[in-house]
């Protein structure tokens, strides 16, 4: 759905474009401009600071105000004081907050979150869920969640259930 991979058959239309007909660079363009991602394993760059990690999508698109926007995103996730810390110096919950800041820094039209609480304890998990849903409202985006957590699924407006590759 997010254009990271191509289906073996059928087509996927993302934000009005049939991404199955686009090459990888064109799909990357759409992802860079209008899509945000949050992953289960956070996937922060360990050698970069929290701020640098958040700046990554904007630096790729050549945004001149990348640093200011990244600072703002970190403030929105409540981590402005940890901006100079390296990813390895952060707790699991903090890492996911940085990852969320990175996913919203380009103000995406659609935000994909793959098991965003899968690697977190219950307390952090609740906080991250609240953060995700409040940010969705704040930046007015569509949140697409993939989860095994039914309580998390219940918070969504629409739920689709997949079992053994089939939509139920």
């Amino acid at each position, binding site marked *: 759905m997010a254009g*990271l991979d191509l289906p073996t058959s059928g087509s996927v239309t993302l934000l009005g474009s049939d991404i199955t007909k686009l090459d*990888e660079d064109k799909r990357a363009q759409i992802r860079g401009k209008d899509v945000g991602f949050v992953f289960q394993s956070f996937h922060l760059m360990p050698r970069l600071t929290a701020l640098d990690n958040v700046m*990554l999508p904007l630096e790729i698109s050549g945004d001149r105000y990348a640093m200011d926007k990244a600072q703002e995103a970190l403030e929105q996730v409540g981590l402005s004081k940890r901006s100079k810390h390296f990813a390895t110096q952060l707790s699991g919950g903090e890492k996911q907050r940085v990852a969320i800041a990175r996913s919203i820094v380009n103000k995406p039209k659609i935000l994909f979150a793959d098991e965003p609480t899968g690697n977190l304890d219950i307390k952090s998990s609740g906080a991250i869920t609240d953060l995700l849903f409040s940010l969705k409202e704040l930046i007015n985006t569509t949140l697409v969640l993939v989860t095994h957590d039914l309580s998390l699924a219940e918070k969504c407006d629409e739920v689709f259930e997949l079992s053994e590759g089939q939509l139920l």
Partner: protein
Amino acid sequence: MSRGLVYGLKKFWSEIFSGDLLILFFSIVLAVTSISSVGFLGDRLKSSMQMQASSILGADLVLRSATEIDSKYLNLASSLDLKSAETATFLSMIIADEDNLLTSIKAVTPSYPLRGKLTVVNFDNSPIQHSGSPPQGSIWIEKKVSESLELNQSGNIIVGNKNFIVEGIIQDYPDRNSSFVGFYPVAIVNINDVDAMGVIQTGSRVVYRQLFSGTQKNLDRFVESLDTLPPNIRLQNAIDVGDNLGEDIANSTIFFNLASLFTIIISVIAAMMAVRRYASRNLLHTSLMKVFGASKTFILGHQITQLFLLIITASSFGLIFGYALQHLLISTLQGIINADLPPPSFRPVILGLITATFVVFATAAPYIKILSDTEPIRILRNDFTIKLSSNFIIYLVAFFSMFGFLGILFQDLKLILYIVITLVVVTFALYSIGRLLLYALSFMQFSNGTGWKLGLKNLVQRGNESILQVIIFGLSLLFLVVLAETRTDLVDSWSETLDEDTPNYFLFNIQEYNLKPISNYFEDQAQITPDFTPLIRGRLLSAKRPGSDVNFDNLMDREANLTWQNLLPVSNKLVAGKWWAEGDEVKEVSVDQEIAASMDLEIGDELTFSAGGKTFSVSVTSFREIEWQSFSPNFFFILSPAAGKELPN
């Protein structure tokens, strides 16, 4: 790509200090240090050799002839911005009061010498002149002349029909030569006095030389414009002389070359491993960048910028270290290199940069491709491994490009081929040993192990990496052993090159009646019996192939020293034909194989020489390979005693 370049530029230092690029950085520093230190050393030695060679010739380029040389060459040189000078050297008796002395008279133009130093002093050693020619009517003489003729400053001497005033003593001059005039004391006169002396007549033996100097580019253009020289004019080039001089030094730099070659191989292996680690780690970064919108060209721009900056910074460090190491090498070689070396050219710097570029791109280029082609879906799959099959191709590419590059760099394909074969064989042997060891270890129980047992367990678990380490460690040891052996061999061969009783001095022009007294003198004084070699200047007049009307167009067009002896000299090796038997009455000659090849001679050809006022013919019965560095008198032509006995010596 430009965004990728900017991103690469911004992230370079953080990537370096993060450690992944650091090993690659050090590998390049090591390779560049190694190649540039040898490069700087070789370059400075070569320049020094060429300066010395120019000094030996008194110029960069010399035209030499036994007859007067056309002035058109001087005009040509002047049109090409070359400096020129002329000399004419001949033997003449100089007379002072009632004494006389056979002297080598060197008549020169005011611009002499073009290279090297001419130092002329007063009789009280105060300096007069450091180049040029004496004014007309004046003469500069060597101390030997003034001593023999008991001359004082401003004394009068006569050469031919001309009176000269002694103006100074020659302390030093370049272009000393070993031709027939080289054995006599020297006097320098102005070339405009030659006619007034009236000593050069038809049949006089004179060496005419035109000297040229200038930039290498102009000298090359001059040589090109010369086209084909008349056969009586010989061209002498300082570079050729320098190459001969530098041969021994060049041999010693082979050791350094070998050391730097091995260093480059080790650096490339280290770089390959570093790049592999860097690429594996960077797969996450690259995949993430792709997820966040980076295109393939962005990734390429980012990677290429980083590697380019890496080449620049690591090469700069490598060149600084290389220059410092070269200084260290020169200070350790101070005893051998007894000269102020000129500064190096830019060649080693360029060589260092090319080496760094090669090390980086031979090892990293395939990984850059893998990184730029990586799929963003790897992020969701948590798959950040590079397939072994792609590794194999990468290693193969790196391996072949490394040897291709080394072949070009060292211009010794045979050496490179030997090294490739050795590397392949040793790598295979080490791989087999590693596999066997791992196989044996796999039978051991490590379940309740601690310490060393855990270490062994780890070795088995990381089988391929363990074997790779065995191979690299083994190869490094092999290189060290080869270098140690080469060093010992080199030192041995140096000490074997010159015997303990290698002569320091040679006596010339000993008459037959002097042989016994001289022999007795040396036996009394130093308990040694000198070897005497008969010697006569001769000219090859013609060659004939019995039963054939073949024309010999390339006959040697100058005089050569001839000798005759019973036994083949120790420093010569017979490569064709037969050496004459003692007491053989046939007139034969043995010829140096190189000169024979240049004249298209074959065994059985008949050569006619003119020497000592006689003309005689001899049959070619053998060819010899001569070891010219043997410090023994060596000859292009050795006559059989039957041919030599009628000649004066």
